[in-house]
């Protein structure tokens, strides 16, 4: 048996008449940096939402296998359960808790999988205190890892774009996931920030041992990071392969030129 992290089989997702995902089949290996590309409206975000339990596809199956070999059927599960199984994500339009500080944002991720603890919280028992200390330490480590230590007491809303992206990554990593789903992490960042981000994503995989599933329009970043790619168009997978194979694939070039979208054609020269 292949050690697959995600197994997506014949998934179809509809909204009224709109077919967002059409018979999609794909898989991600453990430890892989996998990218999903495709023109606007291709269904990339819908795929993420289906993988994380936000949307419930009408047909098909999605299986997530954790490091211990336990298999979860994602369809029909609530997002918080998928998160508990080891799937973390960021959002296309960044969604931090903007009235909280950077530190608090990450800490919420770090402590979300602990038990209820309302009684403990009210009485501030020793176990609660120990928990707090542990979450604080984990949060500090993560902020250090993404390079936000100096901004840890800043209100999240006042961070710049690049920092927000890194904050979202740190917050997602705080849940100790096995796979991190990144929805256009480089959108709105400048070239220098893009380079940092590429570096960071690679470090997440190499140092933290977290697989990466990446949606990105920036072909330079995708081609630099991804080990394998799937191309979506109108909700269907139209191609898959290594970056070199994708560059040379006529169907992909056609899809991108047809949609007159970001320049994969130029990239592929």
């Amino acid at each position, binding site marked *: 048996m292949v050690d697959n992290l995600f197994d997506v089989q014949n998934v179809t997702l509809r909204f009224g008449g709109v077919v967002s995902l059409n018979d999609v089949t794909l898989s991600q290996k453990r430890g892989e940096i996998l990218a999903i590309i495709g023109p606007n409206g291709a269904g990339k975000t819908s795929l993420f939402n289906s993988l994380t339990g936000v949307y419930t596809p009408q047909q098909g199956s999605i299986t997530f296998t954790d490091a211990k070999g336990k298999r979860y059927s994602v369809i029909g599960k609530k997002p918080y359960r998928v998160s508990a199984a080891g799937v973390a994500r960021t959002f296309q339009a960044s969604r931090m808790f903007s009235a909280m500080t950077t530190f608090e944002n990450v800490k919420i991720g770090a402590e979300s999988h602990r038990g209820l603890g309302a009684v403990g919280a009210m009485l501030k028992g020793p176990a609660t205190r120990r928990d707090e200390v542990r979450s604080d330490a984990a949060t500090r480590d993560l902020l250090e890892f993404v390079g936000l230590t100096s901004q840890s007491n800043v209100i999240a809303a006042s961070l710049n774009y690049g920092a927000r992206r890194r904050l979202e990554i740190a917050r*997602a990593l705080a849940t100790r996931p096995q796979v991190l789903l990144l929805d256009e992490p480089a959108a709105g960042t400048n070239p220098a920030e893009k380079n940092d981000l590429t570096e960071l994503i690679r470090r997440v995989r190499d140092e933290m041992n977290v697989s990466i599933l990446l949606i990105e329009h920036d072909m330079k970043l995708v081609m630099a990071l991804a080990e394998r790619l799937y191309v979506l168009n109108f909700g269907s997978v139209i191609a898959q392969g290594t970056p070199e194979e994708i560059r040379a694939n006529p169907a992909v070039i056609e899809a991108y030129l047809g949609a007159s979208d970001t320049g994969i054609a130029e990239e592929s020269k």
Partner: protein
Amino acid sequence: MLRVFQHHMVKRVAGAILIGLLVLVMTGPQGNGSEPTSGFTGSFSEHMSFFGFFTPPRWITFALLALVLSLLVMFAKYSHRAWRRAQESGAAAARAVASAAARVKYVRSRRSGRYSGYALLVLLGIFLPRIITSQSWQTNIVQLVAVYILLAIGLNVVTGFAGLLDLGFVAFYAIGAYTTAWVTGALPTSPPFGIHFNTFFAIPFAIILAMAFGVVLGIPTLRLRGDYLAIVTLGFGEIIFIFANNLYGITGGSTGTNQIPYLSVHLGPLKYLWGLTPQPYYYLTLAFIVLFLMIFSSLEHSRVGRAWVAIREDEVAAESLGIYPLKYKVMAFAIGAASAGFAGVITASQTLFVTPPTFSLSFSINILVLVIFGGMGSIAGVVVGGLVIQGFVVYMIQSPPAWYNPADLYMYLGALLIVMMIFRPAGLLPSRRRLREVTQVESGVARDQMLTHIGPHNRVEEEL
């Protein structure tokens, strides 16, 4: 220049005078249906004495006051010199306010500072019966200030921390009060296990029962959007009222019961009876207020409190981090319910009776006003809000001025809610986090799907 000036002037002055006359009618005499205009005409015909020197009609006084105030404001704005002077003094005032605020912030930010603020309040609380010695004052303070603050602290968990508008809060208070009557054998139904319990045993019963109702009501309804939740909880409050009013065999129906015994302790040599005098109840309630303050404040700064903020700000993002919104909402609901149930025990055991009219929707609104006025999510704010508003209510009951009719209380509270929402939505002593949230939503930083209204709304979940 002149045209602009006149246009604004006419509009502003007219608006101000209109408001002045509205206040005039609000504080005027009570009207009646057979002479529908008598309230209005009465307001306009009454006179007002200025230390006996002269007695102009009230409406002239009000209109003049409004006129003068609006002119002053405008004058300050339009007249260059006055405007500059006002700016200067305004800047000085702003500096003073800023430095005072910085100091308060500094004091508040230091733990010891925060605690010394609370310690001051508690000291004031302890010595209050020495300052206000009248028995009727004290009774009213227990029943209308202390118990209300207790309830407001509980509602603050639901509305302030978790952001859930619960208009049926009174139902849990009613459950607490009726449980007290039930457990002590004061209701037509026989008490649990046929034992007439000591009133203190009502506390665990009431808390557990109110909490259970909170969970049972919460699990289906807390999935709903905020405004639906408000209406469903309101309906729930009404239903509890209807049942309490009509189940004669169980609740005693519309007359309720007046057979509840006082609180008492019989532990070997330790014997104490809370009786007619209000002081023992006052101290008991005060002790519980302090206890509630402490545990809810730890709750706010705990993992649970942070999860509530996360859900309030962005439910989808919170859930993606493994926070199950429903669980935390139900938790807030149950905690709120439990504290209302507890307050019900205190009230029932002091007044010795329970009747349905106490538990009307207006009661929930009254508690909500305290939370909003003080500052949603700010524990200190809620306490101060409760002190100010309920203190005012008690003062008006104890020595009512001619223009005030206690039946009009909710008219004033309603107006206060509107004014607060227009001018100071985060309350008197806003919680810092809430304030940030409000300003961020208003400036469009936060893009919470539940918080914004006007805009493209066909796809709520879009751009996830």
